């Protein structure tokens, strides 16, 4: 089955062309900007459930997030860099999460912490969003139920690596993904169904009798 790839926005993808390399100044500028962004990501903890407790434990003394520059939790999305969605997101909370994401200014990233945020987790039922990537774009998925603080830190370090590989010349990077105005959905409905129900329409009750 597999996912149908989204069409690339025209004319905005940067490829590495040895004959047309970036200048030394541009690469140094990239390094400086990415380094300062990666080393001081201010998280917006969208904590709902058990993962939020592990997030708090990661921020506490033993697994200190302050050494990543992330101790300043910004509960206002306007001042945050990373949205860490820690916990299960039911459908009632989906518009809230969408609005928080839209209120965050670019550059912004998203970490989906835990199984429930990444894919719905153990809650494959009528009430839970089967993965927040159906609502907002996610950069790093951290598996676990809940992930250990070391796991979350590994995910944060992956995000830092991703931030460091960004290039200013890539104009498609900070492109704000807009939902389709008619459906209000961020990706087409078939893609959502495919993401949520990889083995067919799971609203049928026949899957192993469950």
């Amino acid at each position, binding site marked *: 089955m597999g996912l149908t790839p989204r069409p690339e926005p025209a004319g905005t993808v940067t490829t590495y062309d040895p004959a047309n390399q970036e200048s030394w100044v541009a690469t140094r500028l990239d390094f400086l900007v990415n380094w300062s962004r990666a080393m001081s990501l201010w998280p917006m903890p969208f904590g709902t459930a058990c993962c939020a407790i592990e997030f708090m434990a990661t921020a506490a003394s033993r697994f200190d997030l302050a050494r990543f520059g992330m101790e300043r939790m910004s509960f206002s999305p306007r001042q945050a860099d990373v949205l860490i969605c820690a916990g299960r997101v039911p459908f009632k909370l*989906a518009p809230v999460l969408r609005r928080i994401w839209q209120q965050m200014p670019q550059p912004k990233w998203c970490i989906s912490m835990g199984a429930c945020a990444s894919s719905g987790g153990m809650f*494959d*039922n009528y009430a839970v*969003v089967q993965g927040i990537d159906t609502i907002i774009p996610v950069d790093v998925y951290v598996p676990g139920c809940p992930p250990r603080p070391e796991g979350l830190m590994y995910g944060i370090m992956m995000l830092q690596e991703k931030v460091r590989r960004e290039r200013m010349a890539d104009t498609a990077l900070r492109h704000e993904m807009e939902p389709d105005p008619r459906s209000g*959905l961020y990706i087409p*409905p078939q893609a959502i169904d495919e993401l949520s129900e990889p083995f067919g329409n799971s609203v049928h009750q026949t899957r192993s009798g469950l």
Partner: protein
Amino acid sequence: MSSAFQPVLPGSAAPHEPAPATPKQVPHRGGTPNPSAAALQSRFPGLVRRVEVVWGETSVYIDGAHALEIVRWLHDDASQRYDYLSDVTAVEYRDPEQPIEVVWHLRSLPYRRFLRLKAELPKGAPLEVESVWSVYRAADWLERECYDMFGIRFSGHPDLRRILMWEQYREGYPLRKDFPLRGRFSRSEQLRQALAANPEARYSMEELTIAQAFEDLPEAMRRRLSSGERTGE
């Protein structure tokens, strides 16, 4: 801060009963029934359908139309004093012939007793039972949740609207057995409906009276709000 502070002690109405102990070897059926069951049978002879003692707990099956009267008596009577409502919930069985049961868990702190009341609501008729909110304030949200999950209306409840799902939820009553585990709509449709519903943008009637929007409401609606009407389904 007075030196004469006396805490309210459970078991105060039955001081000569032995101190409670962990139940051991509880029989499946045939344990000692709660004395309140016999008291209910003598006080409301026609309304008590049957009494069962399962795993040491007494369940009294009552007539749902008189639930409030029975509960109020259990609360007010000096020999019963069920002052604490632990839970209000409902049970639907897998057998479609069996009625839906509304269950009340009552606790008497002065006598240290626990009683379960059950009312059977047959599925063909509208699911309605009286609210016990006037007796126990704890019933407020518990009955709202029961309504949200099963569709049972509690008459006399001041504000019966959905509590766990959003108010415009269209898929049905989730804990009913004919409601599939994953809901009735496809995932994209559920998501679309959830995003369109946007619960924070919708204020209840009570909240609208506070907000500026009260002036913009039509006259008829303003009159209904001032007379104390609440929004429902």
